[in-house]
């Protein structure tokens, strides 16, 4: 028994080292000087850790502002997606109306349209309403999500139909049932949509690059691109930037995970 627990932990530790290795290496490189990184064979740990690279990141780009922008935009997108996707998924799972199936498949079919094909129309729309260089221009186009709707619909379908009937008998309105029953029971799914939406917005590169021109409105990924020089790649500097950009999302993931697990167990106990 005890040995198997130890073996489990050993396996998990090895697994987590493998998974975390790229990130740990990035951390280690961000603490090395450029000439140390260039030695062969490449060192794994810095012999003489230095925070120089972090200082240089601050000197090169306004990283604080970029982080703030990314957070504002990603949070707005998450809020928007949760609102639109849960309402749409609710309609597709609990409400009965003519053409529901057709509408749902139409919804899903938008997943097949490559994002690249919509860049120019989206850009022209945003430009026409004067949203270039604004938070709403960065966030609003992503506030509705077919994928999130699909995911939530599947989760909502898991909720027993009997609950719906019981709620109706007790006199709950359609909206009340969504707020009091469906949403609390679907926390893991909502959490998944939120984390997915947050990370994919946070990691966007081309759209923010496209619609922003002022330095103050740019986001983190555009910032990292600014750390890459055309002729010489300075790994230490780039890695320092990557770490600074990655840490907040990792923190969020850790916090979010706790939410996810709590939601999952809550459902499990109820059976």
């Amino acid at each position, binding site marked *: 028994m005890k040995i198997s627990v130890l073996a489990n932990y050993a396996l998990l530790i090895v697994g987590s080292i493998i998974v975390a290795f790229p990130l740990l290496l990035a951390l280690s490189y961000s603490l090395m000087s450029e*000439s140390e*990184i*260039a030695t062969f064979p490449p060192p794994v740990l810095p012999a003489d850790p230095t925070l120089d690279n972090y200082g240089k990141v601050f000197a090169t780009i306004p990283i604080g502002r970029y982080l703030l922008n990314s957070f504002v935009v990603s949070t707005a997108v998450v809020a928007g997606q949760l609102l639109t996707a849960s309402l749409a998924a609710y309609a597709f799972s609990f409400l009965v109306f003519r053409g529901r199936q057709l509408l749902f498949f139409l919804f899903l079919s938008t997943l097949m349209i490559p994002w690249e094909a919509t860049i120019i129309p989206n850009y022209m729309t945003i430009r026409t309403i004067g949203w270039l260089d604004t938070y709403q221009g960065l966030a609003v186009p992503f506030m509705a999500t077919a994928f999130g709707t699909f995911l939530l619909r599947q989760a909502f379908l898991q909720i027993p139909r009997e609950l719906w009937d019981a709620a109706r008998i007790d006199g709950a309105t359609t909206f009340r049932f969504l707020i009091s029953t469906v949403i609390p029971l679907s926390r893991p799914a909502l959490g998944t949509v939120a984390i997915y939406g947050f990370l994919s917005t946070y990691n966007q590169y081309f759209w923010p*690059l496209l619609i922003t021109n002022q330095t103050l409105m740019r986001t983190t990924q555009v910032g990292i691109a600014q*750390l*890459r*020089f*055309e*002729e*010489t790649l300075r790994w230490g500097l780039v890695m320092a930037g990557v770490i600074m950009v990655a840490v907040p999302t990792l923190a969020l993931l850790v916090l979010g995970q706790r939410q996810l697990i709590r939601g999952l167990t809550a459902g499990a106990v109820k059976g």
Partner: protein
Amino acid sequence: MRKFLGFALALTVVAAACGGAAPGASDSSSLAPAKDVAPAASITWWHAMSGVNGDALNKIVTGFNSSQSKIKVEAIFQGTYDDLLAKLNTAIASNAAPALVQVYDIGQRYMYDSQQVVPMQAFIDRDKFNTTDFEPAVINYYKYQDKLQSMPFNASTPMLYFNKDAFKEVGLDATKPPVTFTEITEAAKKLTKKDASGATIRFGFGPSIYGWLFEQLRATSGTLYADNGNGRDNRATKVVYNDAAGKAILDWWKAGVDGGYFYNPGIDNDGAANAFNAQKTAMYIESTARLRGHITTVAGKFEIGTGLYPRPDSKPKEGGNIIGGASLYIMKSRPPAEQQAAWEFVKYAMTPAVQGQWQSDTGYYPIVKAAYDTAPSKEWSTKYPQFLTAITAIRESPQNRMTNGAVLGVMPQARQRTQKMIESVLLGQATSQAALDAAVADMNKAIDTYNKANP
């Protein structure tokens, strides 16, 4: 890969956006006389320079803005060259392009075919702007049918980098670096070092599989890359590198790798540079613009020497190096006042003082020869004497269609394709002739498609 994707995207966009616009090459007669056009109060300039180079660029802009009070230039970083081009095309489609853009060397034909550019020659002719002091090798690269399409801005060439300490260690003359294919092979054999177990701890020579390097080897071989004078007399209809000279380049490269004295970092320019920094290779070929980065990174661990770019043993006298880098385009869709303001800025950027400072800040060539007489440039040449090799290389290169370099609308794809070609040969997946023929066949199809889409 990103290069290719970005470009493919851009291509689709332009094909859709400007199918039947006015002819591209307008002449000077379409421009109003300079005295009739008051320059706009502010213009936007999109560029792709980040880090140190971005700082140097902003220095030029600040200098211009404070040198006069009429025009204010705003420089905006728009990601890599490919990102910038993709963004430019989206902007063109909705009439939001800036007045001035920096586009990389291989985007030249593409910019011309987009019909969105006022040729630089139109401004030069109208104002009788004197370009006699411009570096011929640099300025010729950006000419089509002998008209300058854009103003060269940042220019570089490749050269041989070598580890002087390693040369001394094995008894090679560090003042006479190898130049011909055979000389490089011989030197590489001597420089290759193995440990007791037989593993190689230092390779003699280690170039990245980089399409640009192949284009340069075609040029130092004194041969064309594409037909119609490398696409400069007329639009190219096919690539022509599957000849004896092309085979000689690949066979030389392959023999070195097979012999164990050429290192193959793969399609990885930074990997090749790092291997040289880490003394895993004793020689390699790369852009002059990397010189300062190397000197900083190596930090005195060994002495870096530079030499002329490799060429065949016959040292063809019509062979030489092609310029690389990027240039500035004035966009047609902006009002004449903005174009005029952009032109004023371009003229400022081409003054010797600005060029000398730009060289010392970045390591790119000055476009104007008089810049070499300025203090920052002199200081730079004293600090980095290795740079003189590069200047010598382009000064000694004869100016002809071979050394002007190829212009193709599909140049980014062509570069990708040659990389795949070289890789397949080095990995022994194809014989050199078969790989050359396959690449040429693919590219000719791509050129054909491009030419049909851009009549």
